[in-house]
């Protein structure tokens, strides 16, 4: 792997992260999107597609979990399998949650999403094998946490009473957008991790990276649980 390619992909990743960070403090739905959702009438396929994709690309909680999930996956078949499990999980609860109008507290759901990041970081360090001599099935874990990520997406949409007219189509558009956004984000993450994997520093820093992942997850949990308590 030529060094220039690694540098390029890292620069791209950092650039993408810098863009994301602008939206970090406003994760949820921004003002423009809010105005749109409040004005929205009937079927709006492309706008909902866009909102879904944007939500995923700027959704650091979902992205952190994905980084954890694919951190040690290097065969494309495995990446595809795990990402599919995640997709099945979050699509199920996104569609089910909005259509059957299930009300879940957004702070608690987002805290569980934070927990999923902690879980994956701990799992990547081999924590379950070390502590319990047993590792929970990683595919099932991705599926189950995927269900919670989907509820998280659903609560964001439910904050706006979406009109019944065209709801299913809009929802499917949003869901497809989420997958497109996830795909776009994955491309960057995979390029960076795969390039890095070939360097000796990968093994050295994998412990640090997964520790950082756990730490970020704890921060998300603390942030959301405090929100739950004060609101």
């Amino acid at each position, binding site marked *: 792997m030529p060094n220039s390619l690694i540098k390029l992909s890292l620069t791209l990743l950092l650039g993408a992260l810098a863009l994301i960070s602008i939206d970090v*403090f406003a994760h949820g739905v921004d*003002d423009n999107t*809010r*105005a749109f959702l*409040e*004005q929205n009438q009937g079927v709006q396929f492309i706008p909902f597609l866009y909102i879904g994709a944007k939500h995923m690309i700027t959704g650091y909680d979902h992205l952190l979990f994905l980084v954890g999930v694919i951190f*040690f996956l*290097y065969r494309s078949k495995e990446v595809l399998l795990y990402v599919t499990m995640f997709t099945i999980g979050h699509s199920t609860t996104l569609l089910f949650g909005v259509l059957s*109008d299930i*009300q879940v507290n957004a702070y608690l759901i987002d805290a569980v999403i934070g927990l999923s990041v*902690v879980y994956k*970081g*701990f799992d*990547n*360090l*081999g*924590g379950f*094998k*070390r*502590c319990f001599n047993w590792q929970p099935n990683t595919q099932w874990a991705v599926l189950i946490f995927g269900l919670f990520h989907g509820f998280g997406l659903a609560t964001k949409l*439910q*904050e*706006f*009473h979406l009109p019944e007219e065209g709801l299913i189509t809009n929802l499917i558009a949003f869901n497809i957008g989420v997958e497109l956004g996830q795909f776009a984000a994955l491309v960057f993450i995979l390029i960076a991790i795969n390039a890095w994997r070939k360097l000796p520093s990968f*093994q050295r820093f*994998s*412990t640090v990276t*997964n*520790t*950082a992942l*756990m*730490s*970020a*997850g*704890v*921060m998300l949990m*603390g*942030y959301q649980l*405090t*929100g739950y308590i*004060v609101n």
Partner: protein
Amino acid sequence: MQHTVSTKTLVKASITATIVAAIALVTFILPAEYNIDPTGIGQKLGLTTLAQANESDVVVSTNNADTNTSGSQEFKTIEVVVPAGRGVEYKFAMQQYAKMTYEWLTDGEALYFDLHGEPEGDTTGYFESYTIATSNEMKGSFTAPFAGSHGWYWKNKSDKPIAVQLLVKGEYQVIGLKQ
């Protein structure tokens, strides 16, 4: 490829992760997001102003208790500034079948607006719109179909702040600006 680290490393990693997260939460995240600042560092860094900026509008409107905030048969004038590229909501608490007569105009620029009501105690985010349009003035009246908060959402799509002069009379209690 995945390796299991030693128990010592695992414990060290878990403790480090928790400590770093706790420090970040207490000194940066909680002050900036919720104005919870046990160490005072958030205030020194100016982070608590972020959370206060979010609260200030609400505070201003509740502090208006000394002025007359309930409706009467005389027009009351309220000035609302809609920041550039932003949307604001100005609401009134009204009982079911309470009436309001209103007039509002901007200093020239047109605003997108949505006159709507939210039922009392509703947590689903449901609202009912009475008028949606883009205009620089509007006159009319409405009867609240249910008890709750009723009022305007104005969206400023221009790059300059727009002032709205709102005149209302009827049976209401001012709630004021909402985030």
